[in-house]
């Protein structure tokens, strides 16, 4: 059984694999503890008559002890241990390259990045709410003044058309006076509201500074990861890797079909497109 078969998504293969493992298992009621998985050792085959349906075999795998899981060719444990060994080797390699701390630092900065993004979302949201509320207030006052002005205007028309009695004129005079005071008060308040709306734009500065910090952090993360990727690439693939990740001028166009190696190729390409 090799790892390729284990990777297969084909359920027939998986079932066959499972059955083959199940058949190799030794049923032993006298040894309650499953022995630790061992490397290849010959296996007394389970009696053919005992071949169980896959479902039942599955149950027995999940229940504890009672049978010996150690024999050679015990694939699940073998794979498990291989993965574990690889993980240990990767971790050691990272440590030797000095990356484990760097990766740790970089990953540690991610919650900070999340917090900063939340801060930006909150700040911009608050600024928007504040501005909208202020605008609504201002609009009410503005509408109020507009309506009063319309009414005043109509009254003045009547006055100039000699349609007003003396009593009406006195009332009109009082209304005009009130109107002027109201204009003074409303324009004062609205001026203050305009200042508030202006001040609310300070979110741009505050969020901008935080955005810069996150950008720097992301750049640092990218650099670390690219460097790690380059350092762990086998030597024969490293040059190609560097060209892919570091971009910049095309150093070696040989064999590449996705880039133009010189201006003449660029011109040919453009010409073929009709330029």
């Amino acid at each position, binding site marked *: 059984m090799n790892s390729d078969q284990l990777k297969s998504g084909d359920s027939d293969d998986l079932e066959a694999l499972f059955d083959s493992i199940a058949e190799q298992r030794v049923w032993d009621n006298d040894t309650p503890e499953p022995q630790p998985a061992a490397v290849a050792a010959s296996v007394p085959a389970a009696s053919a008559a005992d071949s169980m349906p896959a479902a039942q075999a599955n149950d027995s795998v999940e229940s504890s002890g009672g049978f010996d899981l150690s024999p050679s060719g015990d694939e699940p444990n073998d794979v498990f241990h291989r993965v574990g060994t690889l993980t240990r080797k990767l971790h050691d390699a990272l440590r030797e390259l000095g990356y484990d701390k760097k990766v740790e630092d970089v990953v540690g900065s991610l919650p900070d990045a999340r917090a900063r993004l939340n801060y930006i979302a909150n700040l911009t949201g608050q600024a928007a709410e504040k501005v909208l509320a202020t605008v609504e207030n201002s609009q009410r006052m503005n509408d109020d003044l507009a309506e009063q002005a319309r009414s005043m205007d109509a009254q003045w028309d009547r006055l100039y058309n000699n349609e007003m009695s003396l009593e009406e004129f006195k009332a009109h005079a009082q209304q005009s006076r009130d109107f002027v005071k109201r204009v003074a008060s409303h324009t004062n308040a609205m001026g203050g509201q305009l200042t508030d709306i*202006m*001040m609310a734009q*300070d979110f*741009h500065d505050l969020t901008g500074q935080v955005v810069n910090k996150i950008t720097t952090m992301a750049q640092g993360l990218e650099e670390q990861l690219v460097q790690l990727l380059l350092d762990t690439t086998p030597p024969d693939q490293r040059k190609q890797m560097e060209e892919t990740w570091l971009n910049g001028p095309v150093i070696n166009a040989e064999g590449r079909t996705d880039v133009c190696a010189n201006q003449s190729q660029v011109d040919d390409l453009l010409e073929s497109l009709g330029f």
Partner: protein
Amino acid sequence: MNPEDLKILIVDDFSTMRRIVRNLLKEIGYNNADEAEDGAVALSKLKAGSFNFVVSDLNMPNMNGFELLQNIRSDPGLKHLPVLLVTAEAKKEDIVTAAQMGANGYIVKPFTKATLEEKLTKIVAKMSV
């Protein structure tokens, strides 16, 4: 000195913030202001022009607020210039450093018009003494 005569330099790398400060100063009564986007540009403008007051941020590229303040205080022609810092940095050590370096005031963002007016008035009052 008449408020109208005060020539103020506003230093911040965010143009929206410079605009806000400029508008506020105008509302308070100071209508003679110029702008700089970092400490380096600010320093050259200060050396060239006849400014009476500096309002500056701390976090800026090229030359930050502390460096600008240091350069102002060590230049014989500029060392008496009042400097009001307006910054998002609220750490105590920054505030202490600013005071020790000779800043005349320190405002933390986000700030209100009232705060700016209060600090500005206080510093200007000491200028005429």
